[in-house]
Each structure stands twice: as structure tokens, then as C-alpha cells.
């Protein structure tokens, strides 16, 4: 085990807003008067709540049709997975891959990654802290890109509104999926990555 060189170990708290280091027992920042916390308060609890909400909504997001594309009066509602298969069927493999990554892989990776982070921190799993910090960074970065699908649907719904010729109708899964993305983004921000390093069993 390696000696922690964090600010907390040296009896210091960093202000969230102005970044100034204060003594441990200081309640509020001497510069900007904001409340001082050694770590994001209730970070694990909040993240866990958000991640669980994400899981719950991920289910309807994949079970229900995300959109109905009507061409000349006909068309069936597609689920996300169904849409990917439809894209493969119409020989649009690259687009199918994009949708697969943006709509399936990214949310799943995010949810699973956050879950693992939470579990590793809570149960003090011996993990590679550096590696998981990178994972966390990726999760935080990639979060918004899952909205690709939702953006596409919103644009399509408003643009492709040609009455009987072609029409795109968003399904209930779209809302659920958007909620999943938003919730995971919040979960990522509410997770304090410093907690990874606070794990005594973690190694570098």
C-alpha cells in the first residue's frame, strides 16, 4: 500500500468553488464563503440512487418502441435493438454500428462502470485506482454522446413531418432513454472520483 498524498491526508480541504485549501476544521471557505467538504457529500448514496433509477428506466427504454417511421402510410414501431437490425437489413452497417455504440454500448458501459465504481469504493475492493479513474473520466466524458439517438429522433420528428408521405413519431422508449442518459450523466457528476483513491485497498 502506498502512502496517500492527497490534500485530506495533509489535513486540508479544497474549496469546490474557488479551489483554495483550508484547514480541516474550517466550515466555510475564507475566500468565497461556500461550504467546505472534504469529499462531495453523500456522493455514493446519490450516485447509487441515480444509477438505480437509470437501470430501472433502461428496461422500458429497450423494451418499448423508440420511434415509428411511417413511409407512405406504413411502418412499424422500432425498438432500439429492432432499429439496429432494420439498419443492418438495409445494408447500413456503419450506421447500425453507430447506433449500437451510442444507444446500447455507451449507456450499458456507463451504468456498469458506475456500478462497479460504487461497489469497489463501498466494499473497498482491491482495484487499480489509476485504471478506474481513467474509466471514470471516460464515463463522464462520453455521457452526453448517448444523447445522439435522442437528438436524431427530435430532429427527425420535427423535420420529417410530411403527413402521409413520411412521418416520424417518437415512442415511449425515447423519453425513457433520454432519462437514462440524463440520470447517468448526473450520476457521473455526483460521483466523487477521489473516493477511488480513498480506498485503502486500492493500488496504483
Amino acid at each position, binding site marked *: 500500500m502506498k502512502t496517500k498524498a492527497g490534500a485530506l491526508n495533509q489535513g486540508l480541504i479544497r474549496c469546490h468553488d474557488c479551489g483554495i485549501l483550508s484547514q480541516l476544521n474550517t466550515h466555510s471557505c475564507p475566500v468565497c464563503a461556500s461550504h467546505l467538504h472534504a469529499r462531495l457529500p453523500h456522493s455514493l448514496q446519490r450516485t447509487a440512487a441515480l444509477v438505480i433509477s437509470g437501470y430501472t428506466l433502461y428496461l*422500458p427504454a429497450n423494451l418499448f418502441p423508440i420511434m415509428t417511421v411511417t413511409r407512405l402510410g406504413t411502418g412499424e414501431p422500432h425498438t432500439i435493438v429492432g432499429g439496429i437490425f432494420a439498419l443492418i437489413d438495409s445494408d447500413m452497417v456503419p450506421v447500425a454500428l453507430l447506433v449500437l455504440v451510442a444507444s446500447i454500448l455507451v449507456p450499458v458501459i456507463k451504468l456498469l462502470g458506475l456500478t462497479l465504481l460504487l461497489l469497489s469504493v463501498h466494499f473497498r475492493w482491491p482495484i487499480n485506482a489509476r485504471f478506474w479513474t481513467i474509466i471514470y473520466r471516460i464515463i463522464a466524458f462520453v455521457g452526453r454522446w448517448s444523447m445522439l439517438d435522442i437528438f436524431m429522433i427530435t430532429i427527425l420528428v420535427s423535420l420529417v413531418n410530411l403527413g402521409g408521405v413520411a412521418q416520424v413519431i417518437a415512442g415511449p422508449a425515447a423519453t425513457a432513454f433520454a432519462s437514462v442518459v440524463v440520470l447517468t450523466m448526473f450520476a457521473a457528476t455526483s460521483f466523487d472520483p477521489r473516493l477511488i483513491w480513498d480506498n485503502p485497498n486500492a493500488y496504483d
Partner: protein
Amino acid sequence: MTDFNDPINDVSDAVINKRAELPLVWFLPIVALLVSGWLISKAMMEKGPEITINFPSADGLEVDKTKIKFLDVEIGKVTAISINDDLKTIQVSAQMSKNADDYLKENTTFWVVRPQVGLSGISGLGTLLSGAYIAMKPGDGESKSDFVGLVTAPPIRANAEGKQFILDANNLGSLRAGTPINFHGISVGSVLNHELTKDADAIRLTIFINKPYDQFVRKNTRFWIDSGIDLSAGAEGFKVRTGPLSSLLSGGIAFRNDPDDPIDSIQAENTSYPLYDTYEQSTQIIYNNTLRYVMYFKGSVRGLTVGAPVQLRGIPVGKVVHIDLELDESTKDIQVPVTIELELERIHKVNQQANLSDKDIMSQLINKGLRAQLQTGSLLTGQLLVDLDFYPKIPIVPNDNKSIYPEFPTTANSMDQFTHSANIIMDKIAKLPLDNLTDEINKTLQSLQGTSKAAKDMLVTAKGTLNTTDKTMNSAQKVLTTLEPGASTHYELEKLLQELTRAAGSVKQLTDYLEQHPDSLLKGKEGD
């Protein structure tokens, strides 16, 4: 779950943060759970029973795509298609929606709707793009989940209001299920199906008339095939009738009700009507009291057809119902018996007399000289009609009538008479000794030639004579000049004439005397 506190650095900044985190954040997963739970349970609730339908073929059916519709509302979806063990039919499994539960009964029927492009129009156009779908017609009976699909759509649409009627036709022609039925040109229904009657002598068409037009199908309503262009060339000349454009292409049925039909004679469902082949036929009134006669015409009846009118002074009173050709094997005589039907109800009778049947009237009329003759109805088509009129002078020549009907005396028609006379004339011309005639004419001509020659000679002589005459005339002139008054010769001549007159008088006296006294010639004058 609690926040992680480093056990090594048991540094507590928790003085202010020891308050338990408000459990508000845990509402979020609860709400999410509720929402997704509600969504999923709602979807589960909407899921109805799973059914299976057997079809002869899966043409156009696709898993997860083909829908089951009732009144164009989607009530289910095909989830699987498999081949049955008999290797002849397929089984379609379908997930029905919750509200379809009430329709899935014993008599519920399913059939596949595919796009159909026919002359009468396009049906199921939507299925061109969406693919075929399975249509359902709810039935009654016990609940059921295994069905046998129909090969063709059932006759009635599930919900349409109206009435079903039966039409009896001789020939299906271009009539099909879906053939429109027009009422004054409005499409008011269609043919549902057609079937051969049990004894295979007619076609029974089941038709459906939509509300509110079904009320016009009454007691004396007539249906006829309103097919395309009806070009009829009958004894009355050419006639062209056309129906609506759609029936022009594919045929149709039209009907018309009798304005005299009261509103209470609206007919019940499944009433049977005859289907007339043409509009013409449907307009003919059906007379029940008819008299049949058989007629024997001399010569050809070419142009006379069954149905040709029988006219009395130009007004139709009946029609030809049968034309036969008879050969008497013993005498080798050929006869053409033409059976006609007289509809005497068409004749308006005045001064009616009781106990006088139609038959009696007819025999009296025949005795009065009523005869039938063939007449050309239309010179263009050469169609014949039977004309009745009075020819009291023409005797009744009975024929060898083998039919069950009484014979109606006939007479040759004016054209026949004309040709007959013409024949006679031609015969006479043929009989003329034309050879002799020409011989004689030749001779005459030859003698004429001689005569003309003689005449020529004569003329030459005449010319000489004329010259002599000229000279004579000149001499006469000279003589006459000498005889002019005043001339001495003239005087002498006058004198001479006087003398001659006197002499003549004497001679007269003498002759008179001699006449009276012829004896004086012998005896001389008496009394001197």
C-alpha cells in the same frame, strides 16, 4: 449506504455534515421504478391472447410485420409462421391485443387481404406498400384460440349495414365478387359471391346493397347486367347503351325499381330476383296470360330470331319463342315451325264481352282474315319480325302441324310476293324464243337492207323524175301563160268550155231520156 470515511485518517469534518442525507434522492429510483413498472405492466395488460390460424399459404405474411386488422384497426400481429405437419398448410401464430379477446369466438373468421388489381378497380391498395394483412370478422360462439383461415374473403363486410339479396343468372359472364351494383348510376353495393345452383342450371349471385339503398329493392325491382357497351342490333335497329365507366370495363349490375311499388313492399333479406342479361330484357313486362301458336312460313326464315317481336299493325303483341326445323322422313318435306307467344294483355279491349276467351277471340280474328307474315324489321341488319294483319282474301292453307300449339295461318310477305312476281316475269323472259327472234330479226334486217337499197335506186329514179317534172312544169308554165285571161287562147278555151258544158247538158238530157225510154234507141223518140 454511507459515505466512505477513511479509517486511517479518522479525520472528521462531519460536525456539520453528520445530518443524515435527506432520503429525497431515493425518490428518484422509486419514481423511475414506478414509471417503468407502469409502462411495462400496461404493455403486459394490453397483450391479449395468443392465437393460431391455419392458412393454405403464407404468401405475403411476415413475422412481426403482418398485422391482424378488424375494420382497419390493428388488433394483433403475426409472431410466428410455421408449416403444419400435413405439409400442406401453414400455421400463423399471432399475438392479439387485449380488446380482441371479445372477438375470438368459434365463428370468427380470418382471411388474408392482399392487393388486388382488377378491371373494376384496385382493392387493398394499402397492402401494396404495407404488405398483406390478415383481416378478421368477429363471430359468435365459444371462445377459441385455434382458427382455420379462409382462402377468400367472406361475403359480407363485418359492419356494413344493408341487405343481402340473391340474383339468379344464366351466365356469370364478367361478374365477380366485388362487381359493383348501380342504382341510377350510384354505386350502392356489390356482388359478394357466386355459386352454381345445386342442379347446375343457373348461377346464384349473392349481392349486398348498402343502406339506405336497400329500401329501393322492392317487389317489382328489376336487376340487369349493366355491362359495358350494350350494342344490340335487333329488328328495331341498332341500339347502344353504356353503363358507368367501371362497369364499362368490367361489367356491373344495375337495378331499377318500379315507381308504382309501394314503400311497404320493401323486400326482406335474401329475396331472390332474376338477373336479366340486358337492360332491354329487364324492361319487358312479363305477361302471364299468353297464347302460343305455331306458324309455317314458306321459304327461308333467315333473319328471324327467338325473341323477335310479333307485331299487330306495328305494335308488339308477342314474340317468337321457338324456331324449329322439321323433316318429314317419309315425304322428305322440310318445314320450319315458328312458335310464337301472343301477349293479348297488351291489347286494350273495348266493348268487352263475357264468356269470350282469348283463344276464341283469336280464332275469330283468324276467321276474319288475320294472317301472319314475315317482314324485314331493319333493312340494315336484315332482322325479321312477324307481322299480323288482315288479309281476308288469302285462304287458310293448313300445314302438317305436329306441335301441341294451334296453327296460325300465314301469308307470304310483300317482299316475297314481289320476288315471286319477279320470278314469274323472269321465267317468262326465259321462256321467250330468243334464238328464233334474233334469226327473224336478222332476216328482217337483211330485207330491210334490200329495201333500203331499192329505196336508194328509187331515189335515183325519183331524181330523174324530178328533173322531168321540172321540165314539165316549165312547159306547163308556158301553157299557162298562153292561158292567161285576155289571151286569145283563153277566150277560145272559154268558148270551148261553154260549148262543152252545153254538150254535156245535152248528153245529160239524152242519157236521162234514154234512161226513161231505153226503147227509144230502137224505136226512136216517141211522140215526135
